[in-house]
């Protein structure tokens, strides 16, 4: 059963894809500056390029997750969205806030704290957007036909995400406290609340794309959410080893974060099992590629590459090196980027009521981006190992290490980045060929046309 108001997801996905392309473009720029520091350094110094690289990522992923939520909630709650108008106003509010933030970065307006650099006044606009969003989906569910496990975990995650953002807004006088609460935002987002949201959206898609019973999928959704939070909340301790916090965090962080891969393994196992016991042969193969590719790279990037350096005895050597960058790139890509792309590929054709679109380019985009990112992760891992050896074991100065031993690695990183960017180019082209875009284009917004609803 489809609802007219699900279409408000469209502009969220559109902006999400545009910002993703922007993120990758800035990634290429700073990747090049690593090798040739002079490139555009007067106009766009490394620090500005990097904060745009990080913030466009946070922003496009959040917009994508919000779009997916707007698509999912009416179907789950079995009623139209509480207010299409709020969803649209919220979209424009967040879009303009995002543009203002990026323009501000270009002019040096920053709070200088990674991932959450947006200035205070924009923080409040983001909070306003989040409140409108939570109110809108909350009212939809309350007025709808009751809660499902998917809805509960999704909205729990979204609420947690919003509350945690507040801890990133304060100026802390003490750097130790600053980093302590900064991790509440960053860690409890990506290893807590975002995981809940992603798992719920994944469950929504799995039920529809495999035809496996809701009961079975939601049981595993619960189990995964329980394990993610049981290991992830105190797993924050792996960020509290060296920042000035007490020594007991070494034991707490080590213990809980060693367990963090368990729910990620379960997610792979569960998704593959649902796929194998599918009762329908879904036409939308590209969506399935991204779903399955996502859970696998989520496990490798976040689980494997995370757990190998999470124990203090290893982490004291690898902390703050290219090994972290290697882990970060594959984890974000596998856990969240691929999930948002999967949602776009599933929901846009679904929105238009037809999954029989041409899938060749989508599959090319999948394989190109995936191989580009896996190769980049491998290169960064190699670079990290060399860095650890020279800098941490031999005690060579960072600058000497970087200038004399990193250029070849970083050249390969740039080349793998170009491969990835080529895949993103295909994705962008394909986005504008997906059925929803076509119907969107020829039928105006589609939201006002009753006859179209019947055709869905």
């Amino acid at each position: 059963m489809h609802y007219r108001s699900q279409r408000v997801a469209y502009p969220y996905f559109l902006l999400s894809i545009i910002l993703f392309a922007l993120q990758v473009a800035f990634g290429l720029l700073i990747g090049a500056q690593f090798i040739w520091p002079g490139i555009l350094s007067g106009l766009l110094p490394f620090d500005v390029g990097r904060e745009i690289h990080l913030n466009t990522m946070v922003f496009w992923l959040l917009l994508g997750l919000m779009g997916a939520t707007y698509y999912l909630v009416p179907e789950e709650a079995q009623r139209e969205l509480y207010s299409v108008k709020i969803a649209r106003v919220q979209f424009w509010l967040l879009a303009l806030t995002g543009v203002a933030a990026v323009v501000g970065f270009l002019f040096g307006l920053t709070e200088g704290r990674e991932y959450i650099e947006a200035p205070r006044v924009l923080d409040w606009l983001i909070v306003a957007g989040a409140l409108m969003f939570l109110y809108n989906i909350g009212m939809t569910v309350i007025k709808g036909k009751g809660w499902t496990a998917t809805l509960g975990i999704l909205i729990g995650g979204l609420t947690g995400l919003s509350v945690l953002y507040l801890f990133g807004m304060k100026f802390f006088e003490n750097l130790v406290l600053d980093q302590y609460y900064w991790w509440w935002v960053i860690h409890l987002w990506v290893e807590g609340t975002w995981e809940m949201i992603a798992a719920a959206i994944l469950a929504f898609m799995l039920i529809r794309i495999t035809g496996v019973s809701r009961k079975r999928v939601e049981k595993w959704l619960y189990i995964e959410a329980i394990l993610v939070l049981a290991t992830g909340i105190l797993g924050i301790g792996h960020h509290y080893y060296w920042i000035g916090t007490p020594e007991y965090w070494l034991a707490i962080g080590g213990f809980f974060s060693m367990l963090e891969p368990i729910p990620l393994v379960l997610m792979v196992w569960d998704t593959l099992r649902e796929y194998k016991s599918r009762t329908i042969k879904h036409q939308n193969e590209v969506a399935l590629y991204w779903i399955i590719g996502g859970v696998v790279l989520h496990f490798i990037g976040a689980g494997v590459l995370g757990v190998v350096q999470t124990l203090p005895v290893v982490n004291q050597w690898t902390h703050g090196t290219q090994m972290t960058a290697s882990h970060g790139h594959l984890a974000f890509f596998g856990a969240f980027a691929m999930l948002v792309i999967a949602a776009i590929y599933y929901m846009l054709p679904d929105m238009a009521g037809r999954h029989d679109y041409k899938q060749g380019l989508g599959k090319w985009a999948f394989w190109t981006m995936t191989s580009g990112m896996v190769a980049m992760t491998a290169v960064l891992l190699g670079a990290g190992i060399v860095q650890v050896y020279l800098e941490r074991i031999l005690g060579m100065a960072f600058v000497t290490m970087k200038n004399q031993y990193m250029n070849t690695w970083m050249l390969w990183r740039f080349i793998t980045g170009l491969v990835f960017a080529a895949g993103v180019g295909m994705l962008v082209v394909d986005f504008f060929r997906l059925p929803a875009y076509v119907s969107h284009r020829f039928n105006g917004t589609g939201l006002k046309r009753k006859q179209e609803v019947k055709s869905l």
Partner: protein
Amino acid sequence: MTSLRNLLIAVVLISGAALGYLTYDSTAQLEQRTIPLTDEVVNGKQVWQDNNCINCHTILGNGAYFAPDLTKIAVKRDPEWLTRFFKSPGDLWPGTVMSKIRLNGEDAENLTAFLTWVKDIDTNGWPPDPPGGQDSGQPQDGSESTGKAIFDSECSVCHQFDGSGGNAGPDLTNIGRDRSKEWLKSFLRDPQEVKPGTVMGNPGLDSEEINAVTEYLTSLK
């Protein structure tokens, strides 16, 4: 399903309560693990953020991997050098990509105060002493190999020696021909006294380290 839901809620409440208690305790221990804050340190932290330092550097290991970690920079460089550097990095380090940063005197001093405060944070021993480097605990016999380790870790950022190192300072490959060991030793003890106005900061080496690096630098003459 209801029992799974209740278990989920219980997990959130228990883990949340545990994190809350640990946060309370970690905050209470802050006084023993950091030295008291001054206005200069707090203002310096604001300078650190306003200039987006974390998007090139790491501090306490967190940040970007484009430039050195600055947790212990105030151990390696003396405050006067740091303040001079922040006012005009290109003067002390020609060609640095940081040359666009030009802090006014007050901001530069505050940033130095901030980084000086940071070096005393009790980080549970991070970063560890390099086991293969100069502080490896092996006896420093004044040999060339110890000297090379010191050169790689301290001097090579700015100076070339035998084809390896940076370009900010003079190439030291032939320094053994141009200067005597005694001159080098007294210069390394206090560069400003021997050569007033030099851009080189005090490298902060003890006399054994000075002997070792002098042996290494004069080994090619």
